[in-house]
């Protein structure tokens, strides 16, 4: 029925960006004062003195601020964004450290100067005296709690949380077979190519703050800044410029700089800008992933899980501004496409003297997937069964949908899968990768002295979480359609994808639709961009808003053409009697007619003026229940999340000498319901897979025992280049619609990254014949693991 939904449309964003005409945060505010920060060199210390005297003569210095300068609510800790009943000891930082610093990189003083060079000069000359305290680094030290991160948090325990359905202990006790596994994942980070940044201008005459910030939620920042600075919401505009990637880290808000920079701009009466540098991003933004898990699983002879118990420990870093969303997601999404009849999960969220931990693309799911898929592979190995077969036997079946897990999901709502066909996905993936033919290939390789292995991993991802998103669609008298939605964009092609939806709904050419995101002046009610939610939430909202605008356009046109609205259609921007192109009037003309005028501003507008005739003089120009204009405003608020799914298979070769892992094939079967733009969906999967490979084989945040991040640069933190990613990512789609939204769609943004660690661990294990229980796996890790296994075998 539709022509643009599902089309591989070229992105409308690109022309600006490839000409160098993008407008990222640091491209704005030329001439603004620059902020730089003094940050803690210690992981844990008491601040005994801050001496700024050495900095005062720096040419270009404008101001220096430390905690004691902060006033009102700015002197309070930053908000705990997502409270939870089990988060009994939530701690958040002050914008500038008060008396204690809890990680290397925590902000202590802000310097404002005429340019960044001068600001950094002055920051270097501020002399902070510290009384170093013992640092708590790593989950083991946090659990031991010999030292505390926060004096008033016993056991370093921010939260202890348990969920269970069924009687897990009894189910495991009664099971014919029981396995226990310890599984570990290390830290990585979102690492967008553009760090954080914020620019603020205070308009004294209008008493109004304008703030540009590289964020994933402009409405969230707006509310937080207004509250912190004691301003009315209507005094604050937040505009998200082009954003150079987010991947989760920019959903956290307000960052200290997001409240301090506007505060300083108001005090100083001049625009102030902060642009984070790369080292600052490593040590003062957020990380993710570090968790340690202990699994106990009971299963039968066929490998069917009977009871699953997962106990895990989550390293939340120094503070928990984003609550315990990451471990909650792990604890629920761990189940993937499977249905253990009894499941118990308990986690501790623990403080350490390291950078705080908040969602990074996947947000707890990669760890959960790793735990579940390693467990299934271990069951298969113990029973001598095909790994794909064991998965199939544990799958939720399509006729069991909707499937209620009896747990509470990250949105506070029941964990109920809406739709999905996991057996069909597995069939597709086995065909794509050649699962059944692989043993022969492996034997042939072995005959040549080569080690190859295959792995498989499945996941289910709750996408499109609420509470809501909204949209506004207006048809201008030119016929152009302007769309606004409040959430933000960081490169996902939202302008294109949302324009496709609107153009289809309204019946206008794509080129006539312009979409704005993340500007509170255009749309002020929104949540933000995270949890693969934009297509589902704002996609649905723009569709509903466009339908309202269309209904209005048909009604106005029906009056003008003296026909029934039901007899009209809109094709290529023209409203016409169905099948009769001769009868048409343009949508722009309909917009003119919808707005009764006293004053004509051009020739077309004359038709709507008061002496133009053709109006029913017995009725008011605008009916009581009507409005001028062809507009639609709508909100979409789903009852629950919708659950996308997928599975990856990878074939690797491991070097017998160097232990280097080479990816030979990488195959993806993905189900996000109907695809709005397959080109964009595939791009999202490509990027996710690359991050999954990076997290599995290369990336790790290397902290030493004193809490120094020793690889805080792109020279030492190994993000994949083109040489590290699979040469080709083979993708097949499955399209199981969601019943929970008007377009039937599911999210895709995070999907590609989720099974990375799980699938590569499985393939390396298959190639090497060594159990893989910890990721990432660098060549030296694998080399040492081989040596450990050989010496163990030798001792036997």
């Amino acid at each position: 029925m539709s022509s643009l939904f599902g089309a591989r449309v070229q992105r409308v964003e690109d022309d600006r960006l490839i000409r160098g005409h993008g407008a990222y945060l640091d491209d704005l505010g030329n001439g603004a004062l620059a902020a730089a920060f003094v940050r803690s060199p210690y992981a844990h210390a008491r601040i005994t003195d801050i001496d700024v005297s050495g900095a005062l003569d720096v040419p270009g210095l404008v101001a220096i601020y430390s905690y004691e300068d902060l006033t009102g609510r700015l002197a309070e800790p930053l908000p705990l964004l997502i409270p939870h009943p089990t988060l009994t000891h939530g701690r958040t930082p002050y914008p500038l450290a008060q008396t204690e610093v809890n990680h290397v990189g925590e902000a202590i003083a802000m310097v404002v100067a005429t340019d960044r060079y001068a600001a950094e000069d002055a920051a270097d000359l501020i002399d902070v005296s510290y009384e170093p305290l013992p640092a708590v680094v790593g989950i083991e030290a946090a659990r031991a709690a010999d030292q505390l991160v926060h004096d008033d948090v016993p056991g370093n325990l921010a939260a202890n949380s348990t969920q269970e359905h069924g009687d897990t202990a009894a189910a495991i006790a009664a099971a014919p077979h029981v396995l226990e596994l310890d599984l570990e994942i290390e830290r990585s980070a979102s690492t967008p190519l553009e760090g954080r940044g914020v620019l603020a201008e205070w308009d004294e005459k209008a008493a109004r703050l304008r703030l540009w910030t590289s964020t994933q939620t402009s409405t969230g920042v707006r509310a937080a800044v207004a509250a912190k600075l004691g301003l009315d919401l209507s005094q604050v505009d937040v505009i998200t410029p082009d954003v150079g990637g987010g991947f989760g880290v920019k959903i956290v808000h307000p960052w200290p700089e997001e409240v301090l920079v506007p505060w300083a701009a108001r005090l100083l009466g001049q625009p102030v800008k902060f642009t984070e540098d790369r080292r600052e991003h490593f040590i003062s933004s957020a990380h993710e992933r570090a968790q340690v898990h202990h699994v106990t699983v009971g299963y039968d002879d066929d490998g069917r899980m009977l009871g699953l118990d997962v106990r895990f420990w989550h390293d939340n870093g120094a503070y928990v501004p984003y609550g315990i969303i990451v471990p909650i997601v792990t604890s629920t999404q761990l189940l993937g496409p499977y249905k253990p009849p009894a499941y118990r999960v308990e986690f501790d969220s623990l403080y350490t003297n390291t950078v705080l931990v908040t969602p990074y693309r996947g947000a707890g799911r990669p760890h959960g997937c790793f735990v579940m898929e390693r467990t299934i592979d271990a069951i298969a190995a113990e029973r001598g069964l095909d790994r794909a077969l064991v998965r199939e036997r544990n799958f939720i079946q399509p006729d069991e949908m909707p499937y209620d897990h009896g747990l509470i999901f990250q949105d506070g709502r029941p964990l109920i899968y809406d739709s999905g066909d996991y057996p069909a996905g597995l069939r597709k993936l086995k065909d794509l990768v050649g699962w059944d033919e692989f043993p022969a290939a492996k034997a042939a390789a072995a005959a040549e002295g080569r080690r190859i292995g295959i792995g498989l991993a499945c996941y289910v991802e709750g996408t499109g979480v609420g509470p809501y998103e909204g949209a506004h669609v207006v048809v201008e008298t030119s016929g152009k359609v302007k769309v606004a939605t409040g959430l933000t964009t960081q490169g996902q092609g939202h302008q294109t994808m949302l324009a496709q939806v609107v153009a289809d709904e309204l019946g206008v050419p794509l080129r006539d639709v312009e979409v704005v995101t993340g500007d509170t002046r255009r749309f002020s009610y929104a949540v933000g961009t995270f949890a693969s939610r934009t297509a589902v939430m704002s996609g649905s909202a723009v569709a509903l808003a466009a339908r309202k605008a269309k209904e209005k356009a048909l009604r106005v046109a029906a009056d003008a053409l003296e026909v029934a609205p039901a007899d009209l259609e809109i094709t290529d921007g023209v409203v016409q009697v169905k099948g009769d192109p001769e009868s048409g009037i343009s949508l722009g003309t309909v917009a003119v007619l919808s707005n009764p005028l006293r004053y004509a501003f051009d020739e077309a507008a004359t038709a709507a003026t008061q002496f133009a005739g053709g109006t029913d003089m017995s009725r008011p120009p605008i009916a009581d229940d009507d409005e001028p204009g062809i507009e639609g405003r709508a909100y979409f608020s789903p009852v629950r999340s919708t659950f996308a799914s997928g599975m990856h298979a990878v074939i690797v070769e491991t070097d017998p000498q160097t232990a280097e892992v080479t990816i030979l094939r990488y195959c993806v079967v993905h189900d996000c319901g109907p695809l709005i733009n397959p080109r964009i969906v595939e791009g999202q999967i490509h990027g996710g897979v690359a991050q999954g490979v990076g997290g599995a084989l290369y990336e790790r945040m290397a902290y030493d025992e004193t809490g120094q991040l020793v690889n805080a640069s792109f020279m030492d933190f190994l993000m994949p280049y083109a040489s590290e990613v699979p040469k080709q990512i083979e993708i097949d789609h499955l399209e199981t619609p969601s019943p929970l939204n008007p377009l039937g769609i599911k999210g895709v943004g995070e999907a590609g990254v989720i099974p990375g660690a799980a699938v590569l661990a499985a393939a390396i294990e298959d190639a090497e014949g060594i159990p893989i229980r910890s990721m990432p796996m660098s060549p030296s890790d694998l080399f040492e693991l081989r040596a450990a296994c050989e010496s163990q075998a030798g001792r036997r």
Partner: protein
Amino acid sequence: MSANQGANGAEVHEVRLTVNGAARTANVPARRLLSDCLRHDLRLTGTHVGCEHGVCGACTILLNGAPVRSCLLLAVSADGADITTVEGLADPDGTLSPVQQAFAECHGLQCGFCTPGFLTTITAGLAATPNPDDEQARDMIGGNLCRCTGYQNILAAVHRAAEITRERAAEPGGRS
């Protein structure tokens, strides 16, 4: 190059550059990075800064035709140089360069932050190797980081750009 007193009393130096075909002059302190000079003094903000330690490649420009990291050069050391930034890749009439067009056709960018560095790097790479095979294409972009695309479509864009260049050359009155 001559030295003067700047606004903050610091010594500044006059740097003369040819940027995207136009003569430009900037008065900068000796320590001003070329990337900052281009972005903030000359207001050519298309060149992006992703790491300021020469690893990510987002700030890559063409200096006398060769791809270099503008964050690793002092502006004063580029005095007299001929520089092409991303803003100078398209024809004066606005026609996209083959590499730019290929990126748009192949979905070679997502957030677009690293893109200027890829575009300049590949422009120079294709000048040296007009018909790269897969391995040469991967080598060509092997020093630039992208966090969004997984490089799949950037590699496709390298091949497509080579193809567009050939197509344009084959047109009547085609460009060389």
